[in-house]
C-alpha cells in the first residue's frame, strides 16, 4: 500500500512541474514532490531496515533489510539531488544554457528515473525488476544527452547501446533462471523471487551457473564492472552534475542489488557460494585495478570522479565475494561511497558553473574562489580517500582484514591500485584546491566569492550523515544492525 503510494507520488512529482509557468514555481513544486518521495521512502525503508523483511502488494513487492537500506538511500539522495538541481538549473537558465521547458523535462525525467530505481529495489517479480532496470537506462539517456555539447550525443548513444545490450544479456539470464525453475517446480514456475528462493535448492546447478554468468555480465555492464564499464566515464561526465551524483551513487548499487538477488538463487542451487564468490572476487579486483590507469593522468575532473565510481564499485563487488564477512563490508562501503560521491558531484557542479570548464587546467584556487564549495569538496575528497572517520576507512580496513590471508595476491593488487589512485587524486586535486589555474587566472579575480545556497545545504547534509555514520561505526553498536542488513543479502 505504501509502496503503491510511493510510486504514485513519484509520478506525480514528475508531472507537477509541467503545470507551472515560472522557474521558481517549477523548482518549488519539484522540491515539494521530491520531499514527499523522500518521506515516503523513509516510511517504506526504515521498518524493513530495522525489522524484518516484508512481502506486500499481493506478492508484488518484497522489501528486505538490504532493499530497505537502498530505498532509504535512494529517497535521501534524490532529495538532495533535487535540492542541488535548483541553483544548478537556475544558473543555467540565467546564463541561457537551458530553457524553462527543458527544466520541466529535467525534473520529469528525474522523477521517472527515481521511480524506476525504486521499483528495481522493491520488486519481488524478477521480470518487473528487469523492466525497471531497463527503464533506468531509458529515463537517463535523455538526461545524459541534456546539453547540446560536443560529446553529448556520443555519450548518450554509447550509454544507451551498451547498457541496453547488457540488460538484454541479463534478460537471457532471467529466462534461463525461469527455465531452470520450470523444470523442477511442480505448479509451474513464477518470476517471484521469494517463491523461487524457497525452491532454488532443487534447480539444476549447471543451468543456474550459466544463467548467473549472463546475469553477471549483463547487469554488471549496468553496474560498471570492468571490462563492461566503458560507457560510464562518458555518461557520468556528460550528464548534469546532480544527475551524475545519482547515477554514480545509487544506480550502480541498484544494478549490483539485482546481481545479488540472482547470486542468492545460484548459491542455493549450487549448495554453496564458492563459485559465485570466485567470480565476484575476480571481477572486483579487475574493476579496482583498471581505473587506476585512467585516474593518474586524467584531464577532466568529472571524468575522474566517474572512474573513481568504477573503482569503488569494484571494491563493493570484491567485498560481496568475500564469504561470511563480505556483505557487511559491502553495506558499509555502499553507504559511504553513495553519500560521498554524490556530494562531490554536487560540488563539481558548482565549480563547473563558476569556471565554465571541466578541465583541470582551467580550474584552480577553489578554496579561495569558492570558500564553501571548496571546504566541502576538500572534506569530500578526504572522505572518499578513506581518511579516518570516513566509513570507507572502516570498509577498506575490513576488506584487507578479510582478504589478506586468504587471497594475498588480490589484496596486493587492490592495495597497489588504491595507492596509485590516491596519488592521482592528490596530484590532481591539491592544485585544483590550492593553486591558481594555469589559464584564466586574471579573469577569475573578479569572480571570487560565494553565497550560501541550497546546494551547500545539500552538501552539508551529506557530510553530517557521513561523519555521523563514521562515528557510529567507531562504537560497537553499529555492527549488530549492519549484520542484520548483511544477513539479508545472502
Amino acid at each position, binding site marked *: 500500500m505504501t509502496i503503491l503510494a510511493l510510486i504514485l507520488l513519484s509520478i506525480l512529482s514528475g508531472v507537477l512541474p509541467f503545470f507551472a509557468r515560472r522557474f521558481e514555481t517549477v523548482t518549488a513544486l519539484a522540491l515539494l514532490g521530491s520531499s514527499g518521495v523522500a518521506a515516503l521512502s523513509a516510511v517504506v525503508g526504515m521498518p524493513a531496515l530495522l525489522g524484518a523483511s516484508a512481502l506486500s502488494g499481493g506478492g508484488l513487492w518484497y522489501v528486505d533489510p538490504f532493499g530497505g537500506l537502498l530505498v532509504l538511500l535512494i529517497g535521501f539522495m534524490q532529495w538532495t539531488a533535487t535540492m542541488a538541481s535548483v541553483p544548478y538549473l537556475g544558473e543555467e537558465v540565467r546564463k541561457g544554457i537551458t530553457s524553462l521547458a527543458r527544466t520541466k523535462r529535467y525534473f520529469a525525467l528525474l522523477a521517472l528515473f527515481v521511480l524506476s530505481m525504486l521499483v528495481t529495489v522493491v520488486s519481488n517479480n524478477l521480470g518487473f525488476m528487469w523492466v525497471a532496470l531497463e527503464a533506468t537506462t531509458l529515463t537517463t539517456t535523455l538526461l545524459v544527452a541534456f546539453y547540446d555539447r560536443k560529446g553529448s550525443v*556520443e555519450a548518450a*548513444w*554509447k550509454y544507451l*547501446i*551498451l547498457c541496453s*545490450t*547488457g540488460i538484454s*544479456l541479463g534478460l537471457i539470464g532471467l529466462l534461463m533462471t525461469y527455465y531452470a525453475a520450470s523444470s523442477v517446480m511442480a505448479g509451474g514456475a513464477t518470476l517471484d523471487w521469494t517463491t523461487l528462493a524457497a525452491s532454488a535448492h532443487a534447480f539444476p546447478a*549447471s543451468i543456474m*551457473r*550459466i544463467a*548467473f*554468468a*549472463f546475469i*553477471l*555480465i549483463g547487469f554488471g555492464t549496468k553496474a560498471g564492472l570492468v*571490462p*563492461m564499464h*566503458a*560507457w560510464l*566515464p562518458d555518461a557520468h561526465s556528460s550528464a548534469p552534475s546532480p544527475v551524475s551524483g545519482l547515477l554514480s551513487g545509487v544506480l550502480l548499487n541498484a544494478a549490483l542489488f539485482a546481481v545479488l538477488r540472482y547470486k542468492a538463487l545460484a548459491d542455493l542451487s549450487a549448495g554453496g557460494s564458492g563459485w559465485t564468490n570466485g*567470480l565476484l572476487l575476480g571481477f572486483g579486483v579487475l574493476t579496482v585495478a*583498471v581505473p*587506476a*590507469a*585512467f585516474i*593518474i*593522468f586524467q584531464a577532466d575532473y568529472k571524468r575522474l570522479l566517474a572512474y573513481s565510481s568504477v573503482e569503488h564499485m569494484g571494491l563493493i563487488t570484491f567485498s560481496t565475494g568475500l564469504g561470511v*564477512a563480505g556483505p557487511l563490508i559491502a553495506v558499509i562501503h555502499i553507504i559511504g561511497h553513495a553519500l560521498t560521491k554524490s556530494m562531490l558531484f554536487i560540488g563539481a557542479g558548482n565549480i563547473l558553473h563558476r569556471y565554465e570548464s571541466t578541465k583541470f587546467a582551467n580550474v584552480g584556487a577553489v578554496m579561495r574562489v569558492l570558500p564553501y564549495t571548496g571546504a566541502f569538496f576538500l572534506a569530500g575528497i*578526504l572522505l572518499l580517500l578513506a*581518511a*579516518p572517520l570516513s566509513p570507507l*576507512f572502516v570498509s577498506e*580496513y*575490513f576488506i*584487507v*582484514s*578479510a582478504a*589478506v*590471508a*586468504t587471497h*594475498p595476491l588480490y*589484496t596486493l593488487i587492490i*592495495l*597497489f591500485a*588504491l*595507492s*596509485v589512485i*590516491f*596519488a592521482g587524486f*592528490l*596530484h590532481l586535486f*591539491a*592544485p585544483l584546491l*590550492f*593553486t591558481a589555474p594555469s589559464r584564466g587566472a586574471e579573469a577569475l579575480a573578479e569572480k571570487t566569492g560565494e553565497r550560501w545556497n541550497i546546494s551547500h545545504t545539500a552538501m552539508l547534509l551529506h557530510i553530517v550523515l557521513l561523519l555521523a555514520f563514521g562515528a557510529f*561505526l*567507531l*562504537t*560497537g553498536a553499529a555492527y549488530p544492525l549492519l549484520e542484520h542488513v548483511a544477513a539479508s543479502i545472502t
Partner: protein
Amino acid sequence: MAPSVFGLLFVAALVLPLLGSAAALLARRAGWGNALSQYLFMLSGVLGLAALAGYFTALHAASSVVLLSSPVLAFSVTPLSAFFLLIVYLGTFITSLYALGYLPLYADAYSVPLTNAVSGVFLFALAAVLLSTTVFTFLLSWELMSLSAYFLVIADRSPESLSAGFLYLVMTHIGFACLSAGFLLLSGGHAFISFDGVREVARQLNPAALAAAFALLFIGFGSKAGLVPLHQWLPYAHPQAPSHSSALLSGTMLKVALYGFLLALTLFPGIPASWAFTVAAVGLISAFFGALSAAVEHDAKRLLAWSSVENMGLIFSGVGIALVLHGLSMPLSGALAAAFALFVAFHVLNHFAFKTGLFLATGAMVAKTHTRDLDLYGGLAGKWPAFSGVFLVLVIAAAALPPSGTFFGEWLYLQSLAAALRFSSPLLVASAAAALGLAALVGGLALFAFVKFFSAAFLGRARSEHAEAAEPMPVLLLVPPLLCAAFSVLLGLFGLPVLSAATAGFGSLVPVTTVVPGASMSAWFVFALLAFASAFAFIAYRVFARNRTVRRTETWDCGTPLTPRMEYTATGFSAPMRFFFRGLVMAQKEILAEAVVPGNPWIANRRIEWSIASVWEAWLYRRIARGIVSVAAFVKRLQNGVIQLYLLFVLLALIIVVLVAL
C-alpha cells in the same frame, strides 16, 4: 595517588589538543586566538608530563593504565608507550611555547587558525597512536597523524610545499597500506583484535607468512621513520612545514614510527638473525646516506632533515644489532644487547632534545633573516650573542661532542661494537668491524655537517643583505631552544645512570640490566675535564695575551675589493665531500657565461648553477614511476572511443565467464 587519577590526567592530556583545535576555529577572528590554542596545547603537555611522572614513580612503570576499552576503540598506557609519551608531551609543551611567538610573525603566509586546528588534531593523533592497544585503533590514529601532518606541510600552499606534501602523503599512504597488510596478516582475520591477541595468533602462523608480515611492517614503519630507500619525502617535507611543526615532525613523529616498529617486533614469536641483520644494515646505510647528504646540503632546514635521517638510521641500527646480539648465546652477548637497547632509548631522548631545539632555533633564524640558504648567512653571532650561545650548545649536541648526552650515547654504541669484535664467529666479527667503520664514518660526516652549519651561519661576516638586515631575536623565540639545550646537557649529566636503572619498559624485548665495563664513561668526569680545560684556556689567554699589540690594516686583495661574500660559504666548505663521494652525491654543475662586450670572450658575466640530484630518485623512484606510467598508457589505449570495441569487451567477458561456468 589512585590509578584512576592518572587515568584522568592521561585522558585530559589526550583530549586537550582537540579543544585547542576547536578554540582555534571558534576564535579565529580574535587576535588572541593563537595564544589560546597554544596555551591549551601547553596545558596538555603539562598534564601529560604530570601523569607520566606519577606513572613512572608511583606505578613503577610496569603496569598498564586502561583509558578506554570499547569493542572498537581501545586506549591504554603501557610501559613502552609511556617512554615515548614523555617525548610527545615534552615536544608539545616546547613547540607550543615557541609557536606563541612564532606564528604571529607568519600571519600572512599561513592561515594561523587553520594551522592551529590541524596542529591540535596532529598532537591528539600522536598521543593516540602511542596509546592504541588494538590494531584498528592504531591504524586509525596512524592515518589521522599522517593526514594532519600533510596539512601542516602544505601550510603555506606554495608550489614547493604542495609538491613536497604530495611526495610525503603518497609515500606515507603506501607505508600505511604495508602496515595494514602486515598487521592484518598477523591478525588472522579478526578485525578488532588487540595486540595481545595478535601475539597469540602469530604463534600459529607459518614462517612464510611471518616473514611477509615482518617485511611489510618494516617497510611501513621504516618509510615513516625515514629509512633509505623510502626516505625521499623527509628532506622535502620537513623544511616546508612551519618550524614548530617541523620540530614535531622530526623530533616526535619519527620516534612514533620507531615505537610502532618496536611494538611490531613484540608481536612476533621470535626474530631470526637474518631479519635483525637486515634492520641493522638498513639502519647503518640510512645513517651514512643521511650524514653525507647533510654534509653537502646548504639549505638550513633541509640539512636538519637529513640529520634526522642519519640519527633515525643510527637508532634503527641499534635496534637491529641489539636483536642480533640477543639471539646469540655467546658470553657477553646478553649484556651487549642490553647496552644497545640502552643506546636506543638514550639516543631517542637525545635526538629529540637537540633536533627539536635546532629546528626551533633555525626557524627563528629564518624568520628574522627571511632566507633558508646557509650561503647567505654569516656573522649572526655578532647580532645575536645569546642566541648563538644556545645554538652552539645544540650544535655540540648534534655533532655528538662532549658534554652533551649524544656524546655519551654514541660512545656507548661504539664501545659496545668494539667489544663485539672479541667474539669467536668470523661472520660476527666482520659485521661488527664493518658496522664500526661505518658508524665512525657517520659520526665524522655528522660532525662535519654541523661544524659547517654553525660556522657558515654564525661566524665570519654577513654575506648578504639578508644577514646584514637581520632583525633582533625576541625572547619568546629564544627560550624554547634554550630549554632544549639545557635538557641536552642534563641528559649528558644524568641520562645514562637514570635510564639504565629504570628502563623496565624496554624490558619486553631485551632486559636492560648491566652495562659492559668500559662502555661508558662518567659524565661528571668529562664535565669536570671540560670545565678545567676551558678555565685553563681562559686564564692562559688572559695572562699571555695581555701585552700583544693588534695591528689593523688592509688585507692584500690583488686589486679587487674584498667583500664578505667571498668568505668560505657552506657550499665551498662541503666541496671536498662532494668530490670524494661524487658517485653518490651526483652533483651537477653548470657554468653559464655571458659576454659583456660582444666578441670578447674574456670579459664575461659568469654564473654557476649547481644542484645535487638524489641518487635514489634517479635510480629507483623515477624508474618505478616510469613503469607505472607506461603500463597506464597501455591500459588507456583500450578506451579509444570506438563503441564496437566496447561491445566486443562485453562479448569477451561473457565468453570467458560462460566457459568458466561450464
